[in-house]
């Protein structure tokens, strides 16, 4: 264990990413980004649209290959960790299959991993409990609210028992009340499961409330302009959102953006 804590769980070194736009001109989405993330950390990637935060998440999860630079996840290449199902992704849209019930949606990755039937069932019940959707296992996604659908998305990501949870603006389509409720739920799940979480958001208060550290990304080109440590005590609760310490951190994060 002790040697593992020294090596970062996710290591991003000098990663750059260049896309070409519709006219074929190169667009620099990320420039020389380096971040080390320790096991069990809750890290936010924060920035406005166009700062490359979702691109970085997709590079870590091997959905995109960087133009240059090196990424290791759990000491292996992103491709290896993807095929070993070491991470679960929660997307901005819940991406649920509307022809499957909640239970069968959560079962989808387990079917592909060839998890034995009995274990599938027990894992599904376990994650349903964790996200508080026990009574809705046989509902179809179309019958659920947006917040509940995103809970199913989280449950599905947890069902594969990943070491790392990658969340790509998971609550940006939800209203403020639902978002704050889900913030607390994710923190409580994180406490219970000890996962490493990489959380992409454009909401400053959300990133302060959730994270151990915030990676502030600035756009054009996407680059890391600051890493802000959040030293608010844990467990966090809604009352902290009104404290001067919280406001000071939000202000500090806001001031660390460049070129907006």
């Amino acid at each position, binding site marked *: 264990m002790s040697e593992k804590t020294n090596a970062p769980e996710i290591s991003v070194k000098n990663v750059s990413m260049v896309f070409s736009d519709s006219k074929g001109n190169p667009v620099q989405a990320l420039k020389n980004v380096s971040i080390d993330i320790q096991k069990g950390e809750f890290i936010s990637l924060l920035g406005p649209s166009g700062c490359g935060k979702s691109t970085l998440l*997709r590079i870590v999860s091997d959905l995109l290959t960087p133009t240059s630079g090196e990424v290791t996840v759990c000491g292996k290449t992103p491709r290896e960790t993807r095929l070993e199902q070491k991470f679960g*992704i929660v*997307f*901005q849209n819940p991406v649920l299959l509307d*022809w499957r019930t909640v239970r069968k949606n959560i079962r*989808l990755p387990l079917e592909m991993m060839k998890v034995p039937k009995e274990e599938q069932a027990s894992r599904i019940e376990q994650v349903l409990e964790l996200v508080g959707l026990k009574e809705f296992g046989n509902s179809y996604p179309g019958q659920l609210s947006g917040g509940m659908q995103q809970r199913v998305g989280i449950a599905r990501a947890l069902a*594969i028992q990943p070491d790392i949870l990658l969340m790509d603006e998971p609550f940006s389509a939800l209203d403020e009340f639902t978002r704050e409720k889900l913030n607390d739920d994710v923190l409580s799940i994180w406490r219970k499961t000890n996962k490493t979480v990489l959380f992409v958001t454009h909401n400053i208060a959300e990133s302060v409330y959730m994270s151990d550290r915030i990676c502030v990304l600035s756009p054009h080109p996407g680059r890391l302009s600051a890493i802000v440590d959040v030293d608010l005590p844990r467990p966090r609760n809604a009352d902290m959102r009104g404290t001067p310490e919280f406001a000071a951190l939000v202000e500090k994060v806001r001031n660390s953006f460049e070129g907006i």
Partner: protein
Amino acid sequence: MIKRITSSKGIVTAVWVLGLVVIWEICAFIVGATQRTPVNVLPHLYQIIGSFFDTKSITGSGDTIATLVFSSAAETLSRALIGFIIGMVLGYILALLMHLSHIVEKIAFPYLMIIQMIPILGMAPIVLSITGDISSARIIIAAILTFYPVSTNTLAGFKSVGRERHELMRSYGASKFQLYTKMLIPSAMSYFFTGLKISAPMAITASILVDTLQGGNGLGCMLSQSLKGSMTRFVFWDIVIFSAVIGVLSYYLMGVIERAITPSKRKAKKKAQ
């Protein structure tokens, strides 16, 4: 709330049907006042419906209008159904191949468009002269007309699957087979059924049209004989109404089958009511 809308939908349909009947009857009265043989131009609806239940024999072999319509319909519609099924299967397979390979799509798509643009009136005699057999010609024409909507709609369905759904499957390390069976094919199901809903009435119309090209026992054949005056004009009217009803029913049948095989739609509806 939803219940009110669904019940008002029934009212809307009823108003539509009633409106059509009223317009028909007004026209029939106007025609009746000006023509000496209004039956040839536009008979009243009650005359048409009455003729359908007339027990008087109209052919040498003792058929009434109703038995004649039913036996002709069996002849034509069974071929339409076979053609529809063949077209559906081939159309689906082509959609799959076009989605799997860009080259297949590039080669096949222009031909699909061309086939669709040739009028059946031109295509049917060619097919008939090649096959030399009216039944095969009906099947082939129905299949050709089914093929295009099924193929293009299903392909559109495959293409409509969004980036995040692909990324989700990729993150699970899904094989191509799993991507299709667990994600793309179920996602495209409603598009596939849209194609079927368009093509089912078309397949029926087309096979009736093929009938008119040659003597025989089909609906279209009786239709043209009646128009030429070799049997009562009410055969024509009865077949027109009967075919229209069957065409509409074929459309609704596709919807019923769709709901039967996609429980999520059924359940969402149940909840709404």
